Every structure is written in C-alpha cells, then in structure tokens.
C-alpha cells in the first residue's frame, strides 16, 4: 500500500554543521537520507517507519575525494558513479570501483552513495567486502567531535552499527601502500547489475618466497553483517598454497561463517560457493 506522503517530514540544511546540530538537538531523531535508493523504496512500498528525515544529498562537505601520499579519503556522500570515475581508485583500489560497477544500475549508481551502502548495514551490500579487504577506516562526526575507527568494527549485528543517534558517517579512508599485492573480487548473483548478491568475496594477499605473508578477506552474505574472515586469514598466514592449505582454509571459512537460507539462495549453496571463490583466489597466488 502507498504511504500517506503528507505525514513525512524532510529537511535539507545547507551545511554539515547545521545537520549535526539538528541531529544533536532533536530528541526524536532524524534519519539521514542521501540518494534514496534504499529509503525511497520503503516509502514507495508503504513501509518507511521513519517519519522525520534529513537530506544529505549532494552536500559538498560529504561528497569529496582527498588523495594524500598514503591514503584516499572518500566522503560518505560520494556516489558509486563518482567512485567509478575517480582515477586513483580505478588504478590503485580497483576492488572498490569494481564493486561500484555492479551496484544496482547506472541510475542507481548516479544516486546511491558509499556512505549509504555502509550505514544501511545490509550483509549483502556490494562495497563492504572491498572495504574490508583494504582494511578501511571510517570517520564518524557529531557536534561532540569526530572519531576514526577500523571499518571492520563498525557493524555490531544485523543492521546495527556503532553510530550514535547524533552521529554521521563522514568519510572512508583507504590506505594506498599496496605494492606487490594480488587482488580478487567476485560477486555471485542472478545477474551482475540490479541483483543483490547471493555471496561475494574480496581479498588481497602478498607472498614472499612462495609463502603468504599478508592476507585480508572480506565477505558479503556469509554472516549477519559484512565480515572480515579472520580465522581463514590466520589459517593461510606463512603458508604456501598447497592442496592441504587450501583444504584447511576452506574449512576455516566454513567454521567462521553462518550463511542463511532466504529468497535469494540457500545456506548450503552460499557456503560451497564462498569456499570455491576463496580457492579460486588462492590459485592465483
């Protein structure tokens, strides 16, 4: 059923300070809305619970890129199209531009933002596996100040994050020093565009004299939040890729993931495919 549109409030302050002040002052908190590719779907279907919204769309203070010698800082309001068009991301951090390329369709990429993709907290979101593989940090802001934390500790449980009611995700930072790393990303879904993933894996690894000296693996749709696969990484550290280490890594992956049955796939399929994706990556090392 359609929503009664008149019961929704939307405000669009012109500055980040004004937005943070409203979030700090309002006892019944506002819900931020950026490109609307999630919340407007709920509105159209008559199931948008939040009645007071605050627009972050196209706010210059959140839609930016800053490149330093060590890192790329991406404003939470950068769209997937912005990310696909950024020369440093496409050349050095291509797992993220790849993920952006299969997020929704071109129209969705023109509106959907990296910050929205993260804060929405879907375990199936397209950008988190790449962000986890790159060991991104996230900067959160409020009138009380700002804090920067590892992205891997941002999600607490299904759709729950560490964001306080008065806080906004401000930016995402990706380190640039990735010389010598092999990278991998693959999404398995019914089709590339416009389909939510059944399972996705992103990973980076570096070997020295044949042994894996550094590896990070991010996954979608294998736990209730986007997840770093720490036990799997540990099982591979200082190992060479052999049938035995592959088998150990596959079983570590299965031990630390908890995929579910839902309309898109089954737990059994997700587990089998995730292990196969990992193995496909290990064969490239």
């Amino acid at each position, binding site marked *: 059923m359609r929503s009664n549109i008149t019961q929704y409030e939307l405000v669009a302050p012109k500055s980040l300070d004004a937005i943070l002040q409203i979030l700090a002052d309002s006892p019944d908190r506002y819900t931020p809305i950026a490109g609307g590719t999630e919340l*407007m779907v709920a*509105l159209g279907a008559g199931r948008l619970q939040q009645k007071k919204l605050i627009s972050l769309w196209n706010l210059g203070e959140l839609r930016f890129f800053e490149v330093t010698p060590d890192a790329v800082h991406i404003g939470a309001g950068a769209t997937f199209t912005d990310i696909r068009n950024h020369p440093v991301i496409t050349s050095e951090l291509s797992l993220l531009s790849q993920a952006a390329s299969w997020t929704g369709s071109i*129209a969705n990429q023109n509106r959907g933002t990296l910050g929205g993709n993260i804060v929405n907290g879907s375990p199936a979101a397209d950008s988190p596996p790449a962000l986890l593989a790159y060991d991104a940090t996230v900067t959160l802001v409020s009138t009380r100040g700002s804090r920067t934390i590892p992205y891997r500790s941002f999600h607490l449980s299904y759709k729950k994050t560490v964001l306080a009611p008065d806080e906004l995700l401000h930016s995402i930072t990706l380190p640039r020093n990735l010389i010598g790393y092999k990278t991998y990303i693959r999404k398995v879904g019914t089709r590339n565009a416009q389909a939510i993933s059944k399972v996705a894996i992103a990973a980076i690894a570096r070997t020295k004299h044949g042994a894996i000296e550094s590896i990070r693996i991010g996954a979608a749709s294998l736990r209730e939040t986007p997840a770093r696969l720490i036990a799997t990484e540990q099982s591979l550290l200082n190992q060479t890729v052999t049938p035995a280490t592959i088998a150990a890594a596959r079983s570590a992956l299965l031990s630390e993931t908890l995929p579910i049955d839902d309309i898109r796939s089954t737990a059994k399929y997700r587990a089998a495919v995730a292990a196969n994706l990992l193995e496909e990556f290990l064969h490239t090392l």
Partner: protein
Amino acid sequence: MTQIHFTVNGESKALEAPPMKRLLDVLREDLHLTGAKEGCGEGECGSCSVLMNGDLVNSCLVPILQAEGAQITTIEGVAITEQLHPIQQCFLENGGAQCGICTPGMILATHHLLKKYKDPSLLQIQEGLSGNLCRCTGYIRIFNAVQAAALAGVAE
C-alpha cells in the same frame, strides 16, 4: 508542504508539495507529464527514468525536495520541436519500441549513454541500459536502435 523551484524541460516551475513526494508523482500528477511511467516503484525497472542535472535517475526514488533547483529532462523534453529526436527516430526504425512502457526510460538511458560514449561497444550499451527492463522486445532491437543512434552521431 514545501515550496519547490526547479526546471523541467527548460521551463522553470514553482509548486508546493510535501517534501518527500516522489519526483515521479510530481511530474505525473502536478505537472501532467505522464511520459515517465511507474513500473516497479523500487528503482529496478527504469520505466520512470529521467535526467536530473544530466544524470540518469529513477524518479520514483527522488524526494521532490532533493530536486530543488535541479534541471530535469523527461521524455517530453527530448524532442524539442514537433520532430522526433534522432534517438527516438532510431528506436522507431529499428523496432526498439513495442508496448511503449519502457521506451521513455530506454530513450533517456540511451541519451545518457551516448553523452558518455560516442561509439559504445555492445557491452557498454548493455551496461548503460541494464537498469531498464523491457518485457516485449528481447532487447536485440533496442541494442540495434542504440547502435544506429550512435552511428547517426546524435551525441551532443
């Protein structure tokens, strides 16, 4: 209600609307521009596609307040005179339109694509139109129409 000022097909418009009203509904109900269609209402089918400041967007997912000050182009603004736009002519000649529900979105997605790539590969055409679903043509004739439009050099 909020006062909204924006430009639609080159004409400036001022109207009052609830700020969360969908751009699609403002176009259809307030401005009587019914070229943009509602298919899925969730950003998957592309039949409500319009250009917002030159970018392809699903108008069912844009709250009208976020279109404040924007330049919107709908299918009604593609042909400036009584003559069809060359992209429309190519869709007509190549059988790229059948029932017509997806066609306005397909034309606008093509417009956006040809601005980016003057001579798109088949893969780029498929990606550019991947958010626009058609249940009639099987897409081949649509791809042919886009290639014909590219050959005709319609990109601005």
